């Protein structure tokens, strides 16, 4: 029970009053920003990153765990009351949640979402606690070749599984990989793609890219295309308490969704999008009240919300144990680690055991804070939703530009922010996913380091990637993922023609 004693000392860290306070602040801020329409979890984490510059790493990361969970919950509140899913993972919730709110049952919809998130989040954190040491033991056996193959596998799955087109997903990924090349080469000290601009020597900061794509791009897009669209906010009338039948229908949905969400979070499939839809489909199939689906069935909220939170926790398994981010939000979290000179992975469990286990313990605490804080504060979150669009985006951009400017106190970062904003605008307009670009920026340089290390060890012999069995397996699966859909499509076309 090595994990148990490690976790107990982790609680010793997480329950220190100062860290508890950072957790509280993180959850509250995360929820507040996450509730804002158009602000998803990735942007929430990126915008709040500058707030932690002066904190010690443990406090900062505990605050980030809170922000991460708070942002998820804030997003569901917006989806239920406003029917504008900020991100794809919330679409399933919108299907039933907003209908419930329209039918005057916003209270129970928010309650099943909050309690379901707590149940799923807590079970998923237990699974994370048990699984992490096993993955760490396995990962310690990985050499650079295995790591590189695993990263290539992650690259391909996050860009081809998500979104509607593999080509556009890969284009986004390669854009991110290119941006990751900018700066000083960590192996030789050679400056690459810096064009003599000193601000570029540090490389492209993940906050600038994420805030540019998500905040500036979104502001340009909404202003240019949707500033006249008005939305109706559903009122929270009556009790927020769930009835006995609500409980009876929610419980099994929460548990099933956790079983779906957690495994999907741990594999590089882009986080929450797929499991939320799978959970929705499962509940629709198993329900005893099929007539209510499409009109506000509580299972249809309970399931996807729990799946979302379980997957969000599952994403932390590869992030913490292998150092591999599988969603845009996780990539930004990895950037937060790197700001402190910490590289998540198996070695961090040994060198910074207190920090890692303190962070895991704070996930349990964060889930509880979320439950205690959010339902009573629902009135405040509704008020936040009522902020009109013009003031909302003006405020978001004042904050968003601050994060970029505080990096070097230079307008160059602001100019980059605008360029990424234009890019985000175009990507949104022409249906190119932005997640792979953010992941490519963060993971690209790590993959390059492993690639070069692997070849240095093999004295330049590239066969090292296919003679090591683990590496060969990952690369074979990756190749299959790319080639098989192509062949299937080609064949079915021929048969039809």
């Amino acid at each position: 029970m090595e994990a148990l004693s490690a976790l107990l000392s982790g609680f010793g860290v997480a329950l220190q009053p100062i860290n508890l306070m950072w957790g509280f602040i993180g959850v509250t801020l995360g929820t507040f920003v996450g509730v804002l329409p158009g602000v998803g979890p990735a942007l929430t984490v990126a915008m709040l990153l500058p707030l932690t510059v002066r904190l010690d790493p443990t406090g900062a990361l505990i605050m980030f765990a809170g922000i991460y969970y708070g942002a998820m919950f804030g997003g569901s509140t917006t989806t239920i009351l406003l029917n504008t899913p900020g991100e794809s993972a919330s679409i399933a919730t919108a299907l039933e949640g907003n209908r419930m709110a329209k039918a005057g049952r916003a209270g129970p919809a928010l309650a099943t979402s909050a309690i379901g998130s707590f149940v799923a989040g807590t079970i998923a954190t237990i699974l994370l606690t048990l699984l992490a040491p096993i993955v760490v033991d396995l990962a310690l056996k990985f050499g650079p070749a295995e790591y590189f193959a695993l990263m290539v596998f992650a690259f391909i799955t996050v860009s081809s599984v998500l979104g509607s087109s593999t080509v556009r997903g890969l284009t986004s990924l390669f854009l991110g990989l290119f941006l990751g090349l900018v700066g000083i080469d960590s192996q030789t000290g050679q400056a690459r793609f810096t064009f003599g601009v000193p601000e570029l020597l540090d490389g492209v900061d993940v906050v600038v890219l994420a805030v540019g794509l998500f905040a500036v791009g979104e502001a340009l897009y909404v202003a240019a295309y949707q500033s006249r669209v008005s939305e109706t906010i559903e009122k929270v009338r009556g009790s927020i308490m769930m009835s006995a039948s609500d409980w009876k229908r929610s419980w099994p949905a929460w548990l099933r969704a956790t079983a779906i969400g957690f495994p999907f979070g741990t594999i590089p499939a882009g986080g929450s999008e797929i499991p939320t839809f799978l959970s929705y489909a499962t509940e629709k199939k198993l329900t005893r009240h099929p007539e209510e689906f499409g009109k506000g069935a509580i299972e249809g909220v309970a399931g996807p919300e729990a799946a979302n939170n379980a997957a969000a926790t599952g994403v932390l398994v590869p992030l913490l144990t292998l150092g591999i981010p599988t969603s845009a939000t996780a990539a930004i979290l990895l950037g937060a680690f790197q700001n402190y000179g910490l590289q998540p992975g198996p070695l961090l469990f040994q060198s910074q055991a207190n920090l890692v286990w303190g962070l895991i313990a704070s996930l349990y605490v964060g889930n509880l804070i979320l439950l205690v804080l959010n339902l009573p504060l629902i009135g405040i979150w509704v008020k936040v939703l009522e902020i009109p669009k013009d003031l909302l985006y003006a405020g978001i951009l004042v904050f968003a530009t601050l994060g970029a400017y505080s990096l070097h106190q230079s307008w160059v970062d602001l100019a980059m922010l605008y360029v990424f904003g234009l890019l985000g605008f175009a990507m949104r307009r022409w249906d190119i996913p932005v997640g792979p670009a953010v992941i490519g920026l963060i993971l690209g340089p790590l993959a390059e380091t492993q690639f070069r290390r692997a070849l240095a060890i093999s004295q330049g012999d590239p066969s090292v990637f296919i003679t090591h069995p683990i590496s060969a397996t990952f690369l074979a699966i990756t190749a299959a993922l790319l080639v098989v859909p192509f062949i299937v499509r080609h064949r079915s076309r021929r048969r039809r023609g």
Partner: protein
Amino acid sequence: MRRSGAEIALSIGVVVLGVAVAGVTATLPSEGGYARIGPNVIPAGVAAGIIVLGLWLVYEAFTGGWRKRTEQTEVFEPGAFLWVSGALFAHMALIGWAGFVIAGTVLFVFIARGFGSRRWARNAALGLVLSLGIFYFFVKLLNVNLPAGWLAPVLGGAGI
């Protein structure tokens, strides 16, 4: 057959980017010491990837358009786009010179205008309060330097 000028332009843009990356890569040194894997190897791979993907997009754009794209029907409003862009440019120009608070206020007012709000005085007041709040929070509590600029005498020595 659907053919979109924007898709063709964007696809060609991707190819051009790939060629540009390849061009810069050609100027990078190739010696990488022990394993002879220099700092130009991965950039060359990335450049090749971007070019291939760009050509693929060009092919799709000319043969029925990019696949599975959701068609957008909303009308583009150039005025709104320009106000938001102008807001960011004004902010960029002002921040180092006039200071964080003034730049933030101007940014706030311009963005709100981009979203159709013409209540200049109210927006300026709100933007000022927000920027001042953020300024004091970051400078006094978090010890992050932000330029005080023209308001340096009023802001009481905070900032740089």
